[in-house]
């Protein structure tokens, strides 16, 4: 059975929306990071789906997705490091409480 492309796209859009929502409303920075991961993953789903459905060489999208995963890992590593450092100084990981540079 062939899953039509629309399903993948709708699935990706749902994940993206959840990720976007999480990014915008979560106060906890770790939650924000997780939500960003969700967005990246939704992109990955889209890349792979489009690659399989439209490209002559389906590997193109998969390789792209692998790169995104690697980059996401790196980004999360940096992000978590920042969060930990922040926590050490501020004793908090809540985004709205970190306003030292405001104005």
């Amino acid at each position, binding site marked *: 059975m062939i899953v039509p492309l629309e399903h993948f796209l709708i699935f990706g859009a749902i994940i993206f929306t959840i990720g*976007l929502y999480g990014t*915008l409303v*979560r106060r906890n920075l770790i939650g924000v990071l997780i939500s960003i991961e969700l967005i990246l993953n939704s992109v990955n789903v889209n890349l792979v789906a489009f690659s399989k459905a439209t490209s002559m060489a389906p590997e193109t999208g998969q390789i792209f997705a692998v790169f995104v995963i690697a980059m996401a890992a790196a980004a999360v590593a940096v992000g978590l490091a920042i969060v930990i450092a922040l926590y050490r100084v501020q004793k908090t990981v809540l*985004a*709205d409480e*970190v*306003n030292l*540079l*405001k*104005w």
Partner: protein
Amino acid sequence: MVNQIYFVPLLPLAAFVVNIFFGKKLGEKAGWISVITSAAACLIALPIMFGVARGGHFHHEFLWLTLSNGHALEFGYLLDPLSTTLLFVVTVVGTLIQVYATGYMHGDPKFSRFFAYVSLFMAAMLTLVIANNFIQFFVSWEIMGLCSYLLIGFWFEKDSAANAGRKAFLTTRIGDVGFFIGIMTLYVASGSLNFRDLHHLQPHALLPMAALFIFCGTIGKSAQFPLHVWLPDAMEGPTPVSALIHAATMVAAGVYLVARSFPLFEAVPQAMTVVATIGTITAFMAAFIALTATDIKKVLAYSTISQLGFMVAALGLGGLTPGTFHLMTHAFFKALLFMAAGSVIHGTGTQEIKELGGLFGKMKHTSWTFLIGSVAIAGVPPLSGFWSKDEILLTAYNSSQRWIYWVLLASAFMTAFYMFRLVFLTFFGKARNHHIHAHESPVNMTLPLWVLAAGAILLGLPGSPFFGNWFQNFLGGHGEHHAEHVINWFVMGSSVVAATGGILLAAVLYLWFPQGALKMGEIFRPLYLASINKLWFDELYKRIIVDPWQATGRWLFAFDKTIIDGTVNGAGWLTLLTSRIHDVFDKYIIDGLVNLTGAVVQIFGAFTRRIQTGLIQNYLLIVFLGVLVLVYFELK
């Protein structure tokens, strides 16, 4: 060998330099420096004088500068009988007066300054005496004027002395300006300013003018009518100054000027008439004023003016020799009189003859020398004054203007009278003020008195018939024209009568019948008033010169104050006003604009900074919304 004459003025000049710079350290030694240099100058000059007396005639020029038209201005000396006579008088009398001054000025806080000035004066006077041209003459003439000013106002703490100095300086200045114009005129007329070139003058239309203007210098310096007013006031100076500058030497320089440029005056008969008239008027007028003066020095000052008038009159009548002869004898007896008067002032502390009297017993040397001087000036034979005055009277008698002879004879009579009035009131009778305890002056003051007294007695003799009128022949030139000196018994007799008559009248009025003087004053009241008010010359000059001048000054002051100051203040006020406007403009417009910019930025910033919440999710939301907008526009 004769060039050593240059040391004669240079030595006193050196004394001036030393005394003015190191006077404070030298203290009263400063006086002896001046005396020694002056005496040395005298000694240097002596052999040269003998040389001239034996018939020598020396001159030397060195170039000062060459004018564009090829003429040269020279400095140098000219030693002929005339300048040698003056050289003799100035060095001898000058030295004696300086010796005297070491005693008179003893204890004065400005002792060294005094001698510095006197030395400068001596340097200038000696330069003038040996000068061979008008420029050198004029330069030293002016330096003498300066010294005169400084020494008259020597005690400048007194207002009267300071004023007298100014008056002397300004009054002589009038004459000096004329003198300088005269020099320039003469230069235009003859092309040379050397005295020796005067002997071969070419007739020129400007010569009378030159002579008259040059005579202006004499009128100023020798205190001739109408510029005589400064000399009586000049008596505010220390007495040695009065003796040296205002009796013996400087004032005689005016007479010397006429004598020096005598060929010029001889070439212009009209000028000679003016000279003779001025001299005669001066001689009579000053003698008249001297009759009632009560200040011992003022009497002598007017006497000096009168005697200078005699000399000028003699020169104006063509009598070069009598004028110069009288100049020489006068220098001695008038210096003597002044110094004796100074000794009186020194011993009593006053110079009002109304407070003096009966000094004869207390001040032997002073009294005797003063008496000798008075007899000499009165013209009693055989003292010096008689011979020289007789020569002048003889010249006047033989001239075409015999009225001058009678006027001068009357002046001679008055001279004898006022001098002996002075003698009787000061030295005879009883002391009028018993608070004054007179004492004789120290020996360095009385010794010069006796030397000068000897001069006053003997110096007439070289010009007397006993010595074959040696002086007249010496001055008049050697061998060329031994003028016949006929003794005119009438003139000589009248002169003696005038002298003795004056003395006797004074004795009657002031010695034997002391009330007589008051009676005379009442009988001739208008004359008495005229004399005691000095013929109102000061008042007249005040009215016609000083007052208009001051009025002009006051008017100019008012003009300055209202118009000029008004303009300046107005300009200031205007500047202030415009700057106020500027200030307001700056404050409200420029500052307003600047502040407005700031305010606008601030208001705008107040709104825009709302966006900067500092919450990362807000930014993200905005980014997302922006993306949505972009997508919307992309898809539309």
